[in-house]
Structures are given as structure tokens and as C-alpha cells.
């Protein structure tokens, strides 16, 4: 037996993002729930979010984002031999999302699997993609984070409905001569599994806000620092910090503790809400579009969420 021949390193070739068309503002929510714009903005930092209607599934969202990333990469569907979809909100778990997304994009017979690491899912999937390229298991990988969270959120629960939204983001990962995706720092805290959970098939998503907030603002900046250390990058040299868009106050608290003084901090949540596994690639695709980050910049990604799970790595912006 012999080992496969992988690439010396892997990098992200392109990002793509997609949001459904329907905008839900804080005033829209205030019209039917006991809440208001000021309360929502001060607690979670969200001004508006996007919601997919019944005609648009998490698969549809993934196809849109994946297609954009593929087009931006300059590769064709024939070049992709592995598709990974990170999602925790798939409507029906069989069959998986990745095979369907690949088929819709004209990617023939790729390896295809889903990852459920909730809001950390994209960073887990990116690590798996990078490892696959380096080991020789795949040449080019399409990684998609796609979520239709609104189908698991109680429309009458003001504590969750203001936060969670729908969307998708994607990246194409391919071979490289120099490192474009740093080593991952990942882990989990199964002892806090109940902090974010859907109890059973009849239940909606429940979140213990204070528990999650305390964990996120105290346990995660060391993970982010570890990812920097493993990549040999000083946080002070980071050009961008793109944490999961959970809550603007969590984003700002982690950014403060990280010590990335010159980094632009992703605040995509303001107009996108919390889109779980989609939030990091969605934020990145929009930051690239707006010119907030440029090719060659170093960005630190940090995913965290239900599980509880977390994963972080440094990447070079394509």
C-alpha cells in the first residue's frame, strides 16, 4: 500500500455568497411581536435579516452560493471532485445536501458529504477540504455553508426570531505551492450541549442566551489566538477578523480580546442576521465585493455554535 500524492498546500480560490430576496426589518418584527428596533439593535446588533420563502430550500441557497464561488474561481464543474456542505438546518436528513448540490451544479460523481458542526460548520468543512487537497483525496473542493434557520425557529419566539436568518456562502479550495489555509484549532464542549438545541422533531430551536454569551465571550478568544499561533501569524498582523456572526456584541467582545489592532472586523450580521454555517463565507464574499479585504490579506476565521463546537483558522484572501 502507498499514500496518495497531495498538493504541498491548499488555498481558497474564490468565495461566493447568496441571500434570499425577502428582507425582514426590525420594524416588521415589531409589528407582530413584543419587541422594537432599539431593543433588537442594542441586544444583538441586527438591523435586518433575510428569509427564504417556502419555494426556496437550503439546497437552493447552497446551489446559488456554490455556483457563484465556482464561477469566481475560474474553474469548471469538471474540476471539482469533492463537495462538502456544512449545514444544521436541512429539512430532511436523507439524502444529504452535498450530493444534490453537486448534481444541480453539474459536478459529476464527486465525493459528497455534509458536516453538522452548526455555526462552526464552515470552518470545520474548510479544514476538511484543505486536508483533502493536501493528502491527495481531492484536487479541488467546493465547500458550502447553507442554512434555512427560519424553518427551525418559532415565529412567535422573540428571543430567537430576531437573531436567526437564512443564507449561504461558499468557497472553492484548491492546490497551492504556499500555505493559503492555516492549521485549524478546533474543539467542542459537549457538557454545554443543551445551551443551543432543538429538543425533538416537534420543537423549535432553543438557546440559553446568557450561557452562550458567557461561553462565547470568555472561551473563544484563546481558540482564535491558538489558530494564529499554529499558523505563525501574530494577531497584530491580521488584516481581517471574520468570526461567526452570532451577535454583534459577541463579535466585538472577541475582537477586543484578540488584540488584532489593524484588522477589519466583519459585522455582516447587521444586515444578514445570524446565518449559522453560512455567516463566515457570506460575510467574506461581501467584504471582498466591497473592497474591505484584498487579495493576499490574512484573515482569521472563527466559527462557534451549537454542540457546542468551535473551529478557527487563518486564511489568505484569494
Amino acid at each position, binding site marked *: 500500500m502507498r499514500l496518495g500524492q497531495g498538493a504541498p498546500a491548499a488555498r481558497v480560490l474564490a468565495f461566493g455568497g447568496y441571500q434570499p430576496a425577502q428582507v425582514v426589518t426590525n420594524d416588521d418584527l415589531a409589528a407582530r411581536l413584543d419587541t422594537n428596533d432599539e431593543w433588537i439593535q442594542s441586544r444583538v446588533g441586527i438591523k435586518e435579516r433575510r428569509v427564504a420563502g417556502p419555494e426556496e430550500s437550503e439546497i437552493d441557497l447552497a446551489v446559488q452560493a456554490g455556483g457563484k464561488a465556482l464561477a469566481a474561481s475560474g474553474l469548471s464543474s469538471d474540476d471539482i471532485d469533492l463537495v462538502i456542505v456544512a449545514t444544521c438546518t436541512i429539512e430532511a436528513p436523507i439524502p444529504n445536501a452535498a450530493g444534490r448540490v453537486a448534481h444541480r451544479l453539474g459536478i459529476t460523481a464527486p465525493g459528497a458529504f455534509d458536516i453538522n458542526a452548526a455555526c462552526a460548520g464552515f470552518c470545520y468543512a474548510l479544514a476538511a477540504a484543505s486536508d483533502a487537497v493536501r493528502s491527495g483525496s481531492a484536487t479541488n473542493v467546493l465547500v458550502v455553508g447553507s442554512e434555512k434557520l427560519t424553518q427551525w425557529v418559532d415565529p412567535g419566539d422573540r428571543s430567537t426570531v430576531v437573531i436567526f436568518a437564512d443564507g449561504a456562502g461558499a468557497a472553492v479550495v484548491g492546490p497551492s505551492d504556499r500555505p493559503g489555509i492555516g492549521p485549524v484549532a478546533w474543539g467542542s464542549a459537549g457538557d454545554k450541549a443543551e445551551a443551543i438545541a432543538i429538543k425533538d422533531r416537534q420543537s423549535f430551536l432553543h438557546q*440559553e442566551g*446568557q450561557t452562550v454569551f458567557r461561553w462565547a465571550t470568555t472561551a473563544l478568544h484563546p481558540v482564535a489566538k491558538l489558530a494564529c499561533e499554529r499558523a505563525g501569524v501574530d494577531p497584530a498582523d491580521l488584516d481581517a477578523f471574520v468570526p461567526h456572526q452570532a451577535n454583534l456584541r459577541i463579535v466585538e467582545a472577541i475582537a477586543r480580546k484578540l488584540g488584532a489592532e489593524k484588522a477589519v472586523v466583519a459585522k455582516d450580521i447587521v444586515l444578514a442576521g445570524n446565518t449559522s454555517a453560512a455567516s463566515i463565507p457570506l460575510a467574506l464574499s461581501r467584504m471582498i465585493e466591497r473592497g474591505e479585504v484584498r487579495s493576499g490579506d490574512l484573515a482569521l476565521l472563527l466559527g462557534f455554535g451549537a454542540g457546542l463546537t468551535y473551529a478557527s483558522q487563518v486564511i489568505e484572501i484569494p
Partner: protein
Amino acid sequence: MALTEQEILAGLGKIINEITGIPADEVTPEKSFVDDLDIDSLSMVEIAVAAQDEFGVEIPDDQLKHLKTVKDVISFIQA
């Protein structure tokens, strides 16, 4: 040696000022966090975490919701 009420109050005033911007001298024992100081549940978590660093006393979330006034927190830290 146990901290006095005045020492804890001074420390809490500084913490609350740093987290919420409320002047430290407005943080007095009889004040309610929600009704008088307009501090929300997430800021209370930040205050609890900072208080743990400052005083070495952990205030778990299930206890936090019972601590309505500044005096309640002082008593919890002293206990």
C-alpha cells in the same frame, strides 16, 4: 481577608463603568440593575465575568437572575 462592602462597591462601580459607560458614582447599593441602571441581561453576564476576575467569586447564570440590586451582588460576593 474578606473584602468590605465599600471595597466591593468601588470595584463594581469601576467594572460597570467600563462595560456600560454608567458613571461609577451612580452605582450605589440600593440601585436595581434593570430598573435604575438600565443594564440588560448580556451586560449582566459581562459584569459577572469581570467580577469573577476581580473578586475571584464565580456568579453562575442561574444565580445571576436572582441578583436584582447592586447590594445583592455585593452580598453574593461576600458570602
